[in-house]
C-alpha cells in the first residue's frame, strides 16, 4: 500500500493499475471480481478512490487490516505534501522535473488503458450489461455528476440483472 501511494502520481485513478497489480496479480489477496466490487464501493464513498484500500484490508485481515491498509496508503502522500510544499516553486521551474512528470502522466494513460481492457474482459457481457455500460458512459461524457450516476445505476441493476 505504501508503494502504491508513492507511485500514484496525479490523483486517484493513477493508483488503479498499481492496486490491480499489487493486490490481484502479485499478492493474490483478492480475485479480480471482488477487487472490482471494492472499486465500485470506492466510487460511492465521498472520498478518494484509494479508500478501496480500506475494503481490501478489511476483507483480508478484518478491522486491523482495514486500519493498517488505510494508514499505509494515505501516509506517504501526506509526508509528500508537507515535505515538498516549501520547495515546489523551485521544482516547478526545473525542466527535468516537468519532463519526468509528463512522461509519467503519459504512461498512466497506457496503464489505465490496460486496466480498462482487463476489467472489460472480466465481465460476462450480455445485452442488459452492454446497454447499462453505454448509458453510464453517455452520462459521464455529458458530465452528469458521478454521485448521481452510481446510485441510479445501482437501483437499476438490482431490478434488471
Amino acid at each position, binding site marked *: 500500500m505504501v508503494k502504491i501511494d508513492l507511485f500514484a502520481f496525479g490523483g486517484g485513478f493513477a493508483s488503479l493499475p498499481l492496486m490491480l497489480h499489487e493486490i490481484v496479480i502479485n499478492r493474490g489477496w483478492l480475485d479480480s471480481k471482488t477487487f472490482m466490487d471494492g472499486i*465500485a464501493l470506492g466510487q460511492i464513498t465521498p*472520498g478518494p478512490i484509494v479508500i478501496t484500500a480500506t475494503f481490501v484490508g478489511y*476483507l483480508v485481515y478484518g478491522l486491523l487490516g482495514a486500519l493498517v491498509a488505510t494508514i499505509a496508503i494515505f501516509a506517504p502522500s501526506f509526508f509528500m505534501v*508537507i515535505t515538498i510544499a516549501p520547495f515546489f516553486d523551485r521544482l516547478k521551474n526545473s525542466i527535468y522535473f516537468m519532463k519526468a512528470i509528463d*512522461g509519467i502522466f503519459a*504512461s498512466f494513460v497506457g496503464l489505465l488503458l490496460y486496466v480498462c481492457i482487463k476489467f472489460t474482459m472480466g465481465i460476462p457481457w450480455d445485452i442488459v450489461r452492454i446497454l447499462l455500460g453505454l448509458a453510464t458512459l453517455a452520462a459521464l461524457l455529458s458530465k452528469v455528476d458521478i454521485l448521481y450516476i452510481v446510485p441510479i445505476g445501482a437501483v437499476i441493476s438490482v431490478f434488471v440483472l
Partner: protein
Amino acid sequence: MIVHIRELSTQRNQWLDKNDFKNGVALCQSIPGATAIQAAAYVGQKVRGVSGALAAYLGFGLPAFIFMLFLAVLYAKFSSLPKFISLFNGLQVIVVAIIFNATYSFGRNIANNYKNILVALLSAVSFWFGISPFMVIIGACILGMTILKIPASSAVTDSEPKKTKWNAGQIIGLLVTFFSVLPASIS
C-alpha cells in the same frame, strides 16, 4: 471535490488567497497521491504548519474511512445474497464505464502529441506482458526526461518563492512514528 475545498478555504474562511491555493493544487497534482486530500493537507499546512496539515488530513480521510469500513462489513456479510450479487454485477459495469471515461479524459489532455502517445502505448504493452507498473512508471520517468519536449506554458516563471514554515523536527518525528508503528505494512 477540489472546488469545494477552494470555496471553503479561500472564500468562506479566508485561510489563504486564491493564488496560493492554485499553487497548492498544482503541487498536489504533480506529486503522487490522491489530489483532493493532499490539497486539504496543503491548506492545513499553510494555516497552522504541520499540525494543521495533520488535522486537515485526518478530517478529510476519517469520514471516508468509516463509511468504507461500514460498506466492507456489509459486503463481507451479505455478498452471497442474490439481490446483492445483481447489484454488484451492475456496479461492475458502471465502474468499467467510469474507468473508460477517466482514461479518455486523461488521455485527451495528455496524449496529445506522438511522443506522449508512444510512451502511453509502450506502457500499456509492457504492463500487458507482466512488467510491474512500478517499473513502467520509473521507465516512463526516465524516458520523459530524455525524449519529451516541455510544453511552453509550464516553463514560465510566474510566482516568486515564498517562505513556508518547514518544521524538519516535526516531520521527522512523524515519519519515525509512522515507520515504527506500521512495520507490517511496508513489506
